[in-house]
């Protein structure tokens, strides 16, 4: 509570100084205190996708993440991974594999309590790309009245693009070791490429036959920190 009072008071003071600076033509400048929180590079692996792989037998997905603290509670984020789908149904048989990467930013929602406080709740944006190889598919239209019909769909190479809105949190469990989750809303940008037999699962994106999906990651990560040179 004291922290919020402190932040509110500080904000009001800063605003007052800003207004003062506008009315007084003399060169009154209020400089924001320079950050002295150092650098942080955080590298993590996702535990949720392997967990889902063990539950859902037609898909595999593995994901890694890295983020670097820029400034003003903004982090640059790069994520990547691989996976695929293996469909072996009575009416459809094929498999697909893909690699993917995502880049974007996270913005911490709350101010630090102290310089070495790296816990955060955040929102963010991502741009994702996946490079998908789908094998030739064998389909059967099952018709018990007039007789079933089978056919083949040729193999295809598909590139998928999407945007994500993310949100989540991360806490430091012990020195440098962090855990957190990310919830993602994903919106595909090139639906036309997925009209003809969209892969059942695209690692990094989700269900290939959906234009928008929700996803979740649970990361365990390690933070490497170093001080700025003065």
């Amino acid at each position, binding site marked *: 509570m004291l922290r919020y009072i402190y932040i509110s008071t500080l904000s009001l003071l800063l605003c007052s100084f800003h207004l003062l600076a506008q009315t007084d033509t003399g060169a009154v400048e209020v400089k924001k205190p320079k950050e002295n929180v150092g650098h942080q590079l955080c590298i993590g692996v996702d535990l949720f996708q392997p967990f889902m792989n063990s*539950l859902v037998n037609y898909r595999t997905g593995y994901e890694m993440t890295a983020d670097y603290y820029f400034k003003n509670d903004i982090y640059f984020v790069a994520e990547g991974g691989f996976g695929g789908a293996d469909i072996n149904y009575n009416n459809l048989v094929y498999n697909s594999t893909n690699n993917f990467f995502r880049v974007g930013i996270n913005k911490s929602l709350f101010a630090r309590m102290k310089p070495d406080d790296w816990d955060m709740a955040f929102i963010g944006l991502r741009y994702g790309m996946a490079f998908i190889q789908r094998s030739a598919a064998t*389909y059967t239209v099952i018709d018990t*009245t007039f007789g079933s019909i089978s056919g083949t769909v040729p193999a295809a190479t598909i590139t998928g693009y999407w945007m994500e809105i993310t949100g989540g949190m991360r806490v430091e469990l012990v020195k440098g070791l962090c*855990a957190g989750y990310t919830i993602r809303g994903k919106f595909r940008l090139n639906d036309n490429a997925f009209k*003809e037999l*969209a892969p059942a699962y695209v690692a990094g994106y989700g269900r290939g036959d959906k234009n928008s999906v929700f996803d979740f990651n649970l990361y365990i990560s390690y933070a490497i920190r170093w001080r700025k040179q003065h």
Partner: protein
Amino acid sequence: MINNYRQLVVFLFVVFCFAACTQERLPCPQPTIMSVIIGCHQVIALDTLGNPIIGDTTFSNPEIVGQDSAGFWVTGTKYPLGSKQLLAHLSPIVDSCKWVVSPDTVSYVAGITDTITFHYQHQLNFLSNACGYAYFYNLQSVSATHTFIDSATIINASVNTNINTEHVKIYIHKHP
């Protein structure tokens, strides 16, 4: 900033509980065999100008039986008392299909049947990974014999995943 991570643990527990319910195969929520929906109608009265007023009609216990491309009868469907609509699905192997309609299979009178013939084009469509592929149809024409059917008309030529649209109206000139 976050003094304890109890919230995180509780959240993850809930997520894992939901995730544990995930199915191993994607469920298919829609039919993969598209059927022509045939609505049964009848002139119920004439207006003051002598124009017919058309209304829905029902059959007692109708049955509809298909005929394959080699002319063999295939499995039919019996409908309950008071049925207003009949379903006839089409063969993707050929471009025309016949279905024989018996309006009343309880108090069955021999010879009271009519044959409806559909002419159509078919097209293969990808529905989803869960449902696979299915054939959609575009009705070109429909004709019927005239034992109890007065006429048959296409009102919606596209036979696809929309199961709420009547495709063909048949007009009954009298109850058999």
